[in-house]
């Protein structure tokens, strides 16, 4: 198993945001984690990356316990994280954003090659390479944030609501990019409120409600599940 999360509990002060969630991602999978606002999706991803500490439970990546490890270590072992709200470095150029994404690597030639490959799959980033990231549109910033996360050559990519605030056409574009990334051999844990998009892409999915996993199954299966339809797809 690539990523195993067991009985994860996360607190903010006294409030329990995640109340014993368990799920896994196997090598080569796209797994969707869907849930409404405040279900605890972002908290889970931030905890996997070590930005937030769990109260109890365990997180294993390729067998290694990572739940007490510093974030930089977690990135080095192969978990890339594209955060909610993009968080591109606004006052840096597109190219610099990508260079920062490659921080853990020192193989200059390979980095240059990866950057070329990124420019191939995101032509817009090539035209904007020298521009500051704050001049990009929301969709372009999302592409940049995903591309930046790829620069570390992750084995597992955590995507936190990549469709947030994007128009339907751009959401399709993002979906295409996610399946390209997956095809290139990166496993993906996709957090979404846009459950149609996420479940269509995913091999498997988990439904998260107020900090608990209430349903799990194959992506297509959840897409047609009555309870999921009622809760997320409007009937």
């Amino acid at each position, binding site marked *: 198993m690539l990523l195993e999360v067991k009985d994860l509990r996360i607190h903010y002060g006294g409030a329990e945001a995640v109340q014993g969630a368990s799920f896994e991602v196997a090598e080569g999978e796209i797994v969707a984690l869907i849930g409404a606002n405040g279900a605890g999706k972002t908290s889970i991803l931030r905890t996997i990356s070590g930005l937030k500490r769990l109260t109890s439970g365990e997180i294993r990546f390729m067998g290694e316990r990572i739940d007490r490890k510093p974030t930089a270590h977690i990135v080095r072992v192969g978990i890339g994280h594209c955060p909610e709200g993009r968080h591109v470095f606004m*006052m840096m150029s597109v190219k610099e954003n990508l260079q920062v994404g490659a921080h*853990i690597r020192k193989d200059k030639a390979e980095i240059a090659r990866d950057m070329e490959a990124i420019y191939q799959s995101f032509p817009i980033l090539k035209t904007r390479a020298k521009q500051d990231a704050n001049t990009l549109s929301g969709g372009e910033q999302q592409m940049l944030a995903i591309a930046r996360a790829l620069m570390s050559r992750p084995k597992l990519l955590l995507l936190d609501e990549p469709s947030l605030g994007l128009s339907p056409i751009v959401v399709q574009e993002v979906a295409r990019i996610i399946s390209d990334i997956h095809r290139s051999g990166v496993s993906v844990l996709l957090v979404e409120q846009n459950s149609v998009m996420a479940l269509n892409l995913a091999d498997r999915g988990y439904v998260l409600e107020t900090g608990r996993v209430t349903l799990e199954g194959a992506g297509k299966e959840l897409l047609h599940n009555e309870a999921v339809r009622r809760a997320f797809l409007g009937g």
Partner: protein
Amino acid sequence: MDVGTFIQSLWGGVLEAGLIAMVAVGLYLVLGVARVLNFAHGHILVLGGFCTWGFRETYNLNFWLAALLGLLIVGMGGIVMERFPFRRFYGNFVPIICVGVALIYLFEGGVVQFFGPETKTVGTVISGTSGIKGWFIMRNWDWLVIGAGLGCLVGSGLFLAKTRIGRAMRATAVDPDTANLQGIGALGMARYAMFIGCALAAVGGGLMAPKYGASIGVGLAWMIKGMLAIIIGGLGSFYGCLCACLLLGMAVSFSITYINAQAGYIAMFVLLVVVILVRPWGLFGKKITVGMPGE
């Protein structure tokens, strides 16, 4: 008004600006990257001067070698400061200020204890003057200080702009969590910032020593000048900070030439007030809302 005096003041301003910048850039880095406002940063500058003096006095070392050793020792001292007192309080601004103030006592007490309270004189290294007669003349030493100071500042600017670590430091300063997600360790960056900041200040102190001597009493004044530069330039703006250093340097130099020797401090104060009345976020800072909420 004669042109010679004017140009003389201009260069005097550049000199003062360079020295302020040696403090301000370090303060800026440490504040941005580690979120530490180090009240003892001006004392670091003075300690740089003391190291230079000490190595020359005790071991009769060549000035440059002494200054270089000072830079390394004080830089290492910065790493120790980061590791020991400051790291325990990251993210909590008030205790961090208290630590800085405590360090001031440590440095002042230590220096007076071991070296005595008087100002130490460091013999001149290069004598003579040069310039254009009738226009402006400066001591050769001052030329050298301007050159070395500029070199250090351009060097640190390039380091921040062009290198992997420099980029990582900038990323940490603007968005620590996201920088972390790129595999950038915040503690490592804080260590770099502290080393570079303290080393720059030590160079400043070393360069100043032949002209002003080394006196622990002036530490706080330098820290405040650096702080003024950061506020006038706008929090978070490197070039803003350098511009502010230049303005402060000019304000001091011109007011000393045209008013009197004590007017420098007032001039800096006036500059601060004028800038923050017009732009509370500083010359190049990001626009912020100021004032009490709801008022």
